[in-house]
């Protein structure tokens, strides 16, 4: 007979045991599932896209060929921006020699959108501002042309602002690996993800301190910590870290883990931009690709891992040097480098660039336009994470010229004291006439400030800049209008139902009677222009504006004819580009091609055009726009630029001098400049006294081709008497030769024609 008390105790014991057993089993199972879960996490992230790599944006590559107009200073600047080092004997990629106009450059290999270009050691001679020799040094073989790799000008960041340039372990110097091993993890190639000795040491140190003060982490653990986990320091997190490190080592080999580490590790900060990985850190601190760094520089970067901010070589060069030398000492002690190598490396200067190259946020206005153009074709998410490479049309030389011109002219124009000081703002857009590529954008006076982009977003009244649309509408009707047609500049009162009377005034507050059409444009007479526009009909002028590239709906008010409409500088550029290209509309492009992260071409933005106008009226208009510069409101430019450039352009001024505009073009460059205040208060500048000066100051810095308007076959030149607008003859004292579309020139002789031959007649006809 069993005692019931005994029995109950016995039963309880069995149950407790069972509970323990099941409990342990359950806990074991839970642990196994947890590990399985962690395993899935480890593998999923490591095998998928490891990082959201930002889009990297490149400027246009400098295309070198014999005959290219290029100043040595510009090439030196380009080489500096690309991080090329000047040496006595250039032999490695990314180096050059220079003496008196002769360069020897060893270019870096680069994968362009269309082909790969290998590294090349070449000689380039510049004589009188022109490339005269371009040849490969080996064998003195002439090269037809060659592209320098483009400068990376910016990135479009993922949401968390992590930036990196991923590198492959096979491209990494052995010195980088040995420095990492020496200072961060002696046993990396021996352990399985966790180094027990290091762990035990850290454990006791932490126990003594009563809190977590030491990591004792292997490279694998550090990778896990950065790659998978948050920054918290708890025991649970440490356990996860250990398990994940073991799992990582179980699945992947050391090279893969090391490669991930090299690309993951955090190495600095620039505002909101976090610098991750050695690839980007090399560019960020040394302005050069990782493969070009020397051993001491690699040691410096490795030394920084412990505290990128504390050991920042730009802010704390002494700390960075000490830390680098400690790394070097460890490398020497562990036999990675020899004694002499160690000694020389310790004496080497840090060699960091003064500021991060290629990241002058001065390009922010341009990048803004690039971003907007890309957003039409790509999801914003892809733009921020797919690591695309975007090749743009940005010309750094032109961009710099535009920024400098704005800076220097505005310093002079803006009141230096008082509450109005610093209020004057600016915007500039520059394009290549031949194909509509946007070369530079300035979005404000402070090019470093990535705020309001006036070039793209400031909607301002355009004043007389709109007038060419009126004159083009007229000149497209050769039966009615020619450049010689006399227009009436007497007072005008325009009555329209439901609106107050409109009576435009001229800038000089005078009326000028009968004036030839081309002179009305050259002198920018408002009254005659408005009357012409009303004669033609508002709708037809607005249609011309649409064909010129103004896509927004403009209201058909009479005041529109004198520019009482708001447009952005970019829209004005579009309009004038159609004129500069002879009546062909080219979509303004900032992007040439987009490549995937691996260099596979994704999309090319090719040259496209559309004929919007017949060439004849555009030719006539452009000759009139040339006269704006040679004898009209833009003649101030003649004191700044050579007359032989035959520049065509137009000034624009709005009521009370609130906006100052100038749009003009040479044979190869078109630029639009706006000056004004953000609060739309008067700035006291006309187009000629403000924007035109910036335009001239900028263009003087560029390599320009004279504007040679190709005269269409249907256009002939005829001498005209200015007074009557009729065909001039020998006796006319005020005659001028003007182009006419065949059949439109006046046939009737001017009353003065019968008189004595004046000098001009002899000059034109040689009789």
């Amino acid at each position, binding site marked *: 007979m069993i005692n019931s008390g005994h029995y109950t105790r016995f039963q309880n014991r069995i149950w407790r045991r069972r509970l323990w057993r099941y409990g342990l089993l359950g806990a074991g199972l839970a642990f196994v599932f947890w590990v399985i879960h962690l395993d899935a996490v480890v593998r999923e992230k490591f095998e998928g896209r490891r990082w959201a790599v930002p889009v990297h944006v490149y400027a246009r590559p400098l*295309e070198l060929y014999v*005959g290219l107009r290029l100043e040595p200073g510009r090439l030196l600047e380009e080489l500096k921006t690309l991080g090329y080092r000047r040496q006595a004997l250039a032999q490695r990629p990314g180096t050059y020699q220079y003496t008196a106009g002769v360069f020897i450059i060893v270019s870096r290999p680069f994968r362009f959108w*269309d082909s790969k270009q290998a590294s090349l050691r070449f000689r380039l001679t510049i004589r009188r501002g022109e490339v005269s020799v371009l040849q490969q040094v080996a064998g003195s073989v002439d090269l037809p042309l060659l592209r320098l790799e483009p400068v990376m000008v910016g990135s479009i960041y993922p949401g968390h602002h992590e930036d990196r340039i991923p590198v492959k372990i096979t491209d990494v110097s052995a010195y980088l690996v040995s420095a990492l091993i020496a200072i961060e993890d002696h046993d990396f190639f021996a352990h399985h993800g966790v180094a027990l000795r290091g762990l035990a040491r850290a454990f006791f140190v932490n126990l003594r301190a009563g809190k977590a003060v030491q990591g004792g982490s292997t490279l694998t653990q550090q990778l896990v910590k950065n790659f998978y986990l948050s920054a918290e320091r708890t025991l649970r997190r440490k356990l996860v870290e250990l398990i994940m490190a073991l799992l990582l080592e179980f699945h992947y080999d050391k090279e893969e883990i090391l490669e991930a580490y090299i690309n993951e590790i955090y190495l600095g900060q620039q505002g909101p931009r976090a610098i991750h990985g050695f690839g980007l850190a090399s560019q960020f601190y040394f302005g050069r690709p990782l493969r070009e760094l020397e051993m001491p520089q690699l040691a410096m970067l490795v030394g920084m891992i412990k505290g990128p901010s504390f050991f920042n070589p730009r802010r704390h060069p002494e700390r960075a040097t000490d830390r680098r030398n400690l790394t070097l000492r460890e490398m020497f002690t562990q036999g990675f480098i020899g004694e002499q190598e160690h000694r020389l490396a310790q004496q080497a200067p840090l060699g960091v660039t003064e500021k991060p190259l290629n990241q002058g946020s001065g390009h922010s206005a341009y990048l803004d336009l690039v971003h907007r153009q890309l957003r039409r074709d790509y999801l914003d998410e892809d733009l921020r994470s797919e690591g695309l490479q975007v090749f743009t049309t940005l010309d750094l030389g032109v961009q710099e010229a535009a920024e400098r011109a704005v800076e220097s002219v505005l310093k002079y124009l803006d009141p230096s004291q008082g509450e109005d000081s610093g209020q004057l703002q600016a915007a500039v857009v520059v394009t290549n006439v031949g194909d509509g590529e946007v070369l530079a954008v300035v979005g404000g006076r402070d090019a470093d400030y990535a705020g309001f982009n006036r070039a793209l977003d400031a909607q301002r009244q355009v004043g007389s800049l709109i007038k060419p649309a009126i004159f083009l509408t007229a000149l497209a009707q050769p039966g009615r209008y020619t450049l010689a047609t006399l227009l009436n500049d007497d007072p005008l009162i325009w009555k329209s139902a439901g609106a107050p009377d409109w009576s435009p005034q001229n800038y000089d507050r005078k009326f000028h009677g009968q004036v030839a059409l081309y002179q009305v444009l050259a002198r920018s007479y408002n009254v005659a222009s408005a009357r012409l526009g009303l004669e033609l009909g508002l709708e037809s002028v607005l249609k011309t504006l649409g064909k010129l590239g103004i896509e927004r709906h403009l209201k058909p008010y009479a005041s529109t004819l004198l520019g009482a409409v708001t447009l952005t500088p970019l829209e004005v550029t579009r309009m004038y580009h159609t004129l500069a290209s002879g009546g062909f509309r080219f979509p303004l492009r900032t992007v040439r091609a987009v490549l995937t992260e691996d260099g596979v071409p994704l999309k090319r933005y090719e*040259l496209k*055009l559309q004929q919007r106008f017949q060439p004849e009226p555009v030719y006539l208009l452009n000759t009139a726009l040339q006269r704006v510069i040679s004898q009209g409101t833009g003649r101030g430019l003649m004191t700044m630029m050579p007359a032989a450039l035959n520049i065509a352009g137009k000034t624009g001024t709005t009521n009370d001098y609130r906006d100052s505009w100038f749009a003009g073009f040479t044979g190869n460059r078109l630029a639009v400049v706006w000056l004004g205040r953000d609060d739309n208060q008067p700035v006291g500048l006309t187009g000629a006294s403000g924007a035109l000066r910036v335009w001239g100051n900028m263009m003087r810095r560029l390599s320009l081709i004279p504007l040679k308007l*190709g005269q*269409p076959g249907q256009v002939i030149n005829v001498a005209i008497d200015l007074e009557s607008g009729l065909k001039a003859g020998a006796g006319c004292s005020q005659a001028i030769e003007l182009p006419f579309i065949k059949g439109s020139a006046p046939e009737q002789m001017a009353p003065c024609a019968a008189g004595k031959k004046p000098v001009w007649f002899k000059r034109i006809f040689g009789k």
Partner: protein
Amino acid sequence: MLLTACPVDRYTVRPQTGMSGKQVVQALADAASQEKQAGRFDNAAGLYERALRIEPGNAGLWTALADLRYDQEQFRQVVALTAKSNTLAGDKQALRIRNWRLMGDARKELGEDQAAKAAYDRAEALEATRTRRWF
């Protein structure tokens, strides 16, 4: 009247810059022509565009690009490019004739028969003047 099979680049692309510029433009046009023959149209177009950046006033380059666009069946572009070439062709009659014919071909492909005929007529008229000059 398909002209696309003709090796256009050799005789229409005549560089206008100095001796050196000639070599560059010619080198690019030759490379473009090879890419085109190999069916790599995108690369060919890219090379023509590079050449045009160096010499935008070279009418022959615009025609060569038009020719390429014809092969790519971008007929609207052919019309615009040949028109552009015509504005730069000056007194190069042969090039003008070629442009009008190519434009006519493109118009025809676009189903714009009247415009195609007008373009062919322009070509014929120019051809006639040329022939008259010969005799």
